[in-house]
């Protein structure tokens, strides 16, 4: 049975207020269309997570959708610190989110443990630092120090994470949700598979036969997937390898807008509340910046060497 739906329906049906949500991407394949829809629908009290968060998490925080953030990092990259993130933590605007802080080793491994059905996982980082001294909503369950039962050395254990829903953007998927990626993975595969269900946003929907021509690229099998959305340019202003580049001009626009609370709200009015879906958003982009600017984002094309799985 096809799970193809719209982003509006996917978010309405599968993201509830108070949910724990994994949102994939690493500038690479950010599910921005889904993030905008979460904001449009005014979702509240979410716990969000991913390693190396960026503008999409900043926006969710600024829009007031987030209660808790299991974090490693948040910045706008070349555009500096996340403005909404800072306003939330430093000035409680729109409210102060609660933070539980890990690292880009420990958090991916916590997601991996979740994906594997393991209760916890030992990690070799974080020890000896103030990351051990700050505990928030996870309390004493943020981590445990034990003596290794094997060699008596000190070992840090961190808990597995199992988000209620994982949202990822991929290059292609079939209509049942066999989702394929290529290029930088971040913690996407583990975050999606740690989640109780997955929303797949894809640049293109292909047939099950096309998936079968290169099955090694599949990172999530269809039985875990609750909804599939065909969403071209779904990562903009992030990128999807083979489809389009990072939009650095738009990055600067967001930085400037989010410098102030008013500017940020105007940004949301124009780009999120003022557009009804991703197609409308892209339409607005082309009207505002012109076809040439949009066209320049498109990736050049180069086929990889064909592979054969035949026997």
């Amino acid at each position, binding site marked *: 049975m096809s799970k193809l739906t719209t982003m509006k329906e996917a978010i309405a049906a599968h993201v509830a207020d108070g949910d724990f949500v994994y949102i994939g991407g690493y500038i690479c394949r950010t599910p921005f269309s889904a993030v905008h829809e979460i904001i449009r629908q005014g979702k509240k009290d979410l716990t969000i997570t991913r390693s*190396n968060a960026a503008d999409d998490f900043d926006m969710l925080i600024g829009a007031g959708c987030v209660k808790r953030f299991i974090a490693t990092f948040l*910045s706008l990259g*070349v555009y500096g610190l996340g403005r909404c993130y800072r306003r939330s933590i*430093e000035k409680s605007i729109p409210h102060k989110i609660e933070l539980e802080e890990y690292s*880009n080793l420990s958090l991916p491994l916590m997601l991996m443990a979740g994906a594997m059905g393991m209760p916890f996982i030992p990690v070799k980082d974080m020890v000896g630092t103030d990351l051990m001294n700050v505990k928030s909503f996870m309390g004493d369950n943020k981590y445990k120090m034990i003596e290794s039962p094997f060699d008596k050395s000190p*070992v840090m254990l961190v808990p597995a994470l199992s988000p209620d829903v994982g949202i990822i953007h991929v290059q292609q998927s079939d209509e049942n949700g066999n989702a394929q990626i290529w290029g930088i993975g*971040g913690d996407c595969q583990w975050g999606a598979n740690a989640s109780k269900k997955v929303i797949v946003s894809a640049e293109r929907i292909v047939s099950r036969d096309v998936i079968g021509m290169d099955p090694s690229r599949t990172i999530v099998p269809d039985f875990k997937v609750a909804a599939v959305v065909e969403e071209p340019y779904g990562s903009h202003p992030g990128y999807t390898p083979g489809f389009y580049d990072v939009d650095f001009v738009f990055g600067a626009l967001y930085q400037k807008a989010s410098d102030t609370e008013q500017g940020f709200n105007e940004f949301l009015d124009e780009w999120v509340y003022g557009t009804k879906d991703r197609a409308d958003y892209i339409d607005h982009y082309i009207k505002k910046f012109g076809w040439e600017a949009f066209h320049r984002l498109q990736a050049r094309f180069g086929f990889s060497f064909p592979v054969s799985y035949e026997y």
Partner: protein
Amino acid sequence: MSSHPNDYIKPELMACCGAREIKDGDVVIVGTGFPTMSANIAKHTHAQNAVMMQESGVYDARPRRPALSVGDPCLNPGAAFVGGLVDIMGMFLQKGWVDVGFLAGSQVDKYGNVNTTVIGDYAAPKNRLPGSGGANPIGSLVKRVLIIALHDTRRLAERVDFITTPGYIDGPGAREKWGLPPGTGPAALITNKALMRFDEKTKEAYLVSYHPGSSVDEVRDNTPWDMKVSADVRETEPPRAEELRVMREILDPHRMIKIYEKRGYV
């Protein structure tokens, strides 16, 4: 062209300081900017068999433009390996394969501890910074950590406000006590005024060389701990002609490195 042309800028000198720390055959984990520049200079000069990876999942990238982030799309085509964080940070870094890593700190202390979390009190910070990201695992697990920092009494500290990433923590024996792998830790602190190393016994940063235009006294005045000075302290060797040629002709023809001057690296 003389062997040490004098038209270089400070970020170029600092990039060379980083490059000279890299040995042939090293496995280096890089971010963007300085680290990538340093590793690439090394690769084009004395360390042709050094290899690089980015935490996002990339090994041995062949970018056609300078990467602006560790997730930059230009890192994908041509790389020898593209996976994810669990591969690079788990399978390569945590397993102990990485020789050199770079850290940049908003605040760095005498033990090489780095703060990228908050300035001020954690619960009510003056400035909320990005957080650890890959910094903590890199500082915990690579064999030789190279720290890049601005040299003034605000960025350098006796003790950082928040230890995001461990250097020698609170002194000799601390890394061992916490079970961090033997033979890891900060190797050098590269600032816009000096190159420092960490004393084998006390684990405190001491002055090895001051950059041309600076002096032992100026470095001491801008260092907020009782800084020791190497017995054979000298001036930092300026960029060699070959290092500058590699930077300007091959790695960075548009000289994007100049943005570091605007960030205070002068």
